[in-house]
């Protein structure tokens, strides 16, 4: 170890792996993984989120699951909670939709309106 900067480099790198255990305020992605969700293909959606987050090296995002969200016919469903904003619910999710949600909503803060439950009900 030669300098504080070197230590800081290691710290930053390692922080990514333990970040989850700290209290955080960041974005929360919740995937509905009830039987209905799983049957409709929630698992590939979840994996797509993990893959994309890893690829883009996004910090401060947690991906969790929940049980049946309630509207089984619209599964797989995903809810995105950003601090200080209303929850956004996406329906009939596919791995391809995930990429857009990550790029536009998670990274840039603009929800993808056409995928949301609101768009379906119109």
């Amino acid at each position, binding site marked *: *170890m*030669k*300098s*504080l900067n070197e*230590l800081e480099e*290691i*710290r930053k*790198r*390692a*922080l*990514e*792996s*333990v970040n*989850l*255990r700290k*209290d955080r305020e960041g974005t*929360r992605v*919740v*995937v509905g*993984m*009830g*039987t209905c969700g*799983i049957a409709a293909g929630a698992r590939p959606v*979840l*994996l797509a989120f*993990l893959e994309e*987050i*890893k690829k883009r090296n996004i910090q401060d995002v*947690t*991906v*969790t*699951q*929940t*049980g049946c969200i309630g509207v089984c016919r619209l599964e797989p469903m995903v809810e995105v909670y950003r601090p200080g904003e209303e929850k956004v619910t996406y329906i009939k999710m596919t791995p391809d939709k995930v990429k857009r949600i990550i790029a536009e909503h998670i990274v840039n803060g603009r929800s993808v309106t056409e995928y949301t439950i609101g768009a379906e009900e119109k």
Partner: protein
Amino acid sequence: MEFYRAHVLVCGGTGCTSSGSTDIIDKFNDELQKHGLQNEIMVVRTGCFGLCEVGPIVIVYPEGAFYSRVEIGDVPEIVSEHLVKGRIVTRLLYHDSITEEETIKSLDEVGFYKKQMRLALRNCGVIDPENIDEYIAFDGYKALGKALTEMTPDQVIDTIKESGLRGRGGAGFPAGLKWEFTRNAVGDKKYVCCNADEGDPGAFMDRSILEGDPHSVLEAMTIAGYAVGADQGYIYVRAEYPIAVKRLTIAIAQARQYGLLGKNIFDSGFNFDIELRLGAGAFVCGEETALMASIEGRRGEPRPRPPFPAVKGVFSKPTLLNNVETYANIPQIILNGPEWFRTIGTEKSKGTKVFALGGKINNTGLVEVPMGTTLREIIYEIGGGIPGGKEFKAAQTGGPSGGCIPAQHLDTPIDYDSLTQIGSMMGSGGLIVMDEDNCMVDIARFFLDFTVDESCGKCPPCRIGTRRMLELLDKIVSGKGEEGDIEKLELLAKNIKASALCGLGQTAPNPVLSTIRYFRDEYEAHIKEKRCPAGVCQALLRYIIVAELCKGCGLCAKHCPVEAISGERRKPYTIDTDKCIKCGLCMEKCPFNAIIKK
């Protein structure tokens, strides 16, 4: 680097390991593999979470679900329900971690953790102790970097002095002063040692720190080496702590690999390395001069002081010796400044103290509280009270060197000085709770029996004096006590305290003295009335059949191994107390609770 969506933290402290956490970790890995989740969920073996009573403990992040008493058979359910489907397995959650609305409380809100302040234990149960990167992620080695690149040795010592940190090993000597003495001592070579020879019955806080956060001790010792001018450190740890030894060995290897131990650390020209020295488990080796003799490879026996270790220690060179918990506080003091540390605790005792809660208490485990917390808060709010709704009688602090604290002092704010004032001591932090079923004479005898066993035999007051005291106590608990025995005990105690060579002997009479001080009536009951009020001392017990309750079924007589019970069917039976061997079997067998012991 993989992005893990969930972390499964499994306690790998000694407590949970002995209740099977290693198998649980293996099972988790198997199950995750089976579900193909191994690349998205990480299983981490951490140090002690503190709540050993409900181990093995598993915490799943990001939800922070706190699973207690997890068995191998529960693992498939946790994986398939919680980790696959996101449905938390409520029946396994620690009962106090769920709110009325069935949502999960954050750990700081759980009764056991709410009043705690974890400084020395900050990383225990949070990081993987076998992974230096995780320690660094939680600001590890930053204090060392700061000390070596931005501070002079004198500034480091001033910081520790100003913080008011006192030695956590027992006596409470100001740490900064010790550092200064060692720095000022003249010598071509100096040493920094860590006393990890935790020997008090019931104390396991040092072990848990070494198991859960070994790097914090290595970092602190390196800072100390820089401050006092030493280039070699020794950790004296008991061989009976295999997990601690293993994790320390791994930690030292990783620190060397990163250049955090070795030559020219942080390019400052400062060299420091640490080696382990394993102790064979003698209690006296926790005494500083005996410990240093043992490090040198000699027999672990104390020697008179002065000279103190700061002047003449290991290999006759100036040596700094602190305890594990003391070191665990150092990095944070350097990082956050002495002012921050001074805001915690009482006027003369700054910071926090870790206690190992044991005995008659619901939440057996490890707790860390700010100095000045009362015993009542520790026992009732954190410890969850006494099992079976029994009455609190006393708490024993400081192990065989300390004393007991009776109920009237439950509200004394605990710090070094208040404990000494009420006839006990902080000691290393063992805290054994006793209820109405404990006999105080028996407790005193237990601790004295321990010190008699552990006395090294070098000085007569300890070797002979403590044995004479034990003989007197044996006499009292076997019903042969005489008038004047208490006074004899007090006189012996006074003389041993005044004349024994080292701390072991000087403090050995404390449990006897403090129990006499607060429970003299119990001693007197044993001596004058030949009665043990708590019903513990076998020789003073009598089993009696209460005639009114006895239905004459004869079950007791049938089970009595020595045929001491006789009687006629359907009439009250009687026990021949001369024949009775007091095994208690009759009492256990009586369906009418007609047999009592007095």
